[in-house]
């Protein structure tokens, strides 16, 4: 039930949103705004963390020392992004352990793209180029999101992501301009990651469950379909530079719209992967749970050590 106070607070909140002011952790906010943010931000954090796995799959097999160092630094950045985003989400009153619990019990989601396997070295390039490329389009838009800590995290993260995208593109470029088998490797990786990258923007606006309110609250600033179009428009010329064949035969410049047209996404696959039946859904969660369980004795030891230290200093003070 809304009290008079709440109604006043609501007016103030609406005014801030209308005037493009940021909502900060100590400000009053509607419960649903908070819930919606926790859902989106924690999902974003989990995506960074689960995303470490498919790329991490190639750290120990990277083809040169330079590539290995760059990849390791990149995956480390993703872990760092996960950390900022968990911290930013904690400002909404949800702890990191609650978020991890929600991930491991499948209550929280992460980006479905990471449920596809990285089969060749070129996949590392394709992920940096396409997946980080798609993420940047989304995140640039989120720099203007209405929640202050999220917006600031996005500004910081975008700087690193654009470096990631360049490293991915650089890998693809070396392969596409390399030997026939390298070029084939690049083509194959792009073909496999193209559609899942388009799916990263979510369902069509007309089918998107959370979009309406998120747009009203300015948590989301641009619609799924608009962002997806932006990604396609910026990526097609890059495919041309690489000299690879288009991953979708329907890609064609539409003079009238001023955009590229493209084929329809396989939405059945999209929902199948979101609902847990993608090629690596089980593997990714199992890996996360195993690592977490394997580390339990360490965390327990740290807690026990802290308690002992506190007892010691209490004794000394007495």
């Amino acid at each position, binding site marked *: 039930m809304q009290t008079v106070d709440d109604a006043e607070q609501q007016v103030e909140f609406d005014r801030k949103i209308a005037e493009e002011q940021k909502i900060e952790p100590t400000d009053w906010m509607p419960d649903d705004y908070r819930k919606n943010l926790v859902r989106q931000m924690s999902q974003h954090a989990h995506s960074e963390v689960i995303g470490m796995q498919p790329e991490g799959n190639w750290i120990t097999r990277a083809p040169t020392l330079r590539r290995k160092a760059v990849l390791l630094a990149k995956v480390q950045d993703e872990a760092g992004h996960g950390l900022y985003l968990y911290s930013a989400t904690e400002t909404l009153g949800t702890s990191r352990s609650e978020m991890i619990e929600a991930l491991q019990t499948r209550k929280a989601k992460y980006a479905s793209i990471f449920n596809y396997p990285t089969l060749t070295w070129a996949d590392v390039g394709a992920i940096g180029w396409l997946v980080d490329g798609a993420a940047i389009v989304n995140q640039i838009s989120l720099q203007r999101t209405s929640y202050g800590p999220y917006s600031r995290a996005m500004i910081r993260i975008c700087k690193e992501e654009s470096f990631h995208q360049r490293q991915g593109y650089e890998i693809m470029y070396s392969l596409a301009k390399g030997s026939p088998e390298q070029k084939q490797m690049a083509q194959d990786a792009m073909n496999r990651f193209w559609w899942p990258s388009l799916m990263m923007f979510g369902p069509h606006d007309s089918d998107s469950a959370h979009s309406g309110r998120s747009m009203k609250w300015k948590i989301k600033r641009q619609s799924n379909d608009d962002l997806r179009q932006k990604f396609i428009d910026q990526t097609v010329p890059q495919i041309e530079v690489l000299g690879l064949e288009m991953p979708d035969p329907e890609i064609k410049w539409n003079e009238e719209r001023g955009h590229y047209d493209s084929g329809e996404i396989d939405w059945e696959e999209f929902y199948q992967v979101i609902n847990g039946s993608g090629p690596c859904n089980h593997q990714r969660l199992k890996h996360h749970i195993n690592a977490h369980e394997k*580390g339990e004795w360490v965390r327990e030891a740290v807690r026990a050590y802290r308690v002992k230290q506190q007892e010691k200093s209490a004794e000394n003070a007495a």
Partner: protein
Amino acid sequence: MNQQQSNLYRFLVGLGDDAVVLSHRLSEWCSNGPYLEEDIALSNIALDYIGRARMFYQYAVEVEGKGRTEDDIAYLRTEREYTNLLIHELPINDFAFTMVRQFFVDVFYCEYLEKLSQSNDERIAAIAAKAVKESRYHLKRSEPWIRQLSEGTDESRRRIQAALVELENFVGELFIMSDWEKELVAEGVAVDREVLQSGWDKYVQAFLAQSEINFPDSQLQIRGGRDGIHTEHLGHMLSEMQYMQRAYPGLQW
């Protein structure tokens, strides 16, 4: 290469191998650590070691003068041609093992690299001066871990002790010099590792004693790394690490 250059080449490749192999092991923790913060920290240390490996290899191939690259050294030599000291190649095992190994090598490198930064070979001195700063920082992290795990729970203490038992056999090799390396010491290029041993023993024993853990003097037990005699683990590591270069020879990546 004359004898002096050949000794120098061997020396640089050995140091590069130590770094590349340990870096590889540390990188295996990425997405497997007990905290997200540890994934980041261990990756960071791994990156420091890759950086070291590259600097030593790049210098080595210049000394060799055959137009080879750092990647030829890392990816196209066999187990028997790798000359890292064995402690670096042991599998990561559990977090206690990884941190005890790190503590051991951190204590070693803080002393060793400090001395090596006085080398009359300016290039080596510069690499060591950069690397010793990293190792001092690594030690600032490994020490509190050893402390917390030694004094945390029964299980963590038991795991620390198990790691100590497993590693004590591999410590002695850090302090063994071969004749060619002694020649480099005489020339003022390398550092006598033998004389670092008693200091290392004292430091490690005193540190562990604060947590009431006894550690024996390091003895020479298992050795062979600098002569290419390894544990069985290295071959598997190299199979994985060198896969791309072996499967697609001669390509640029």
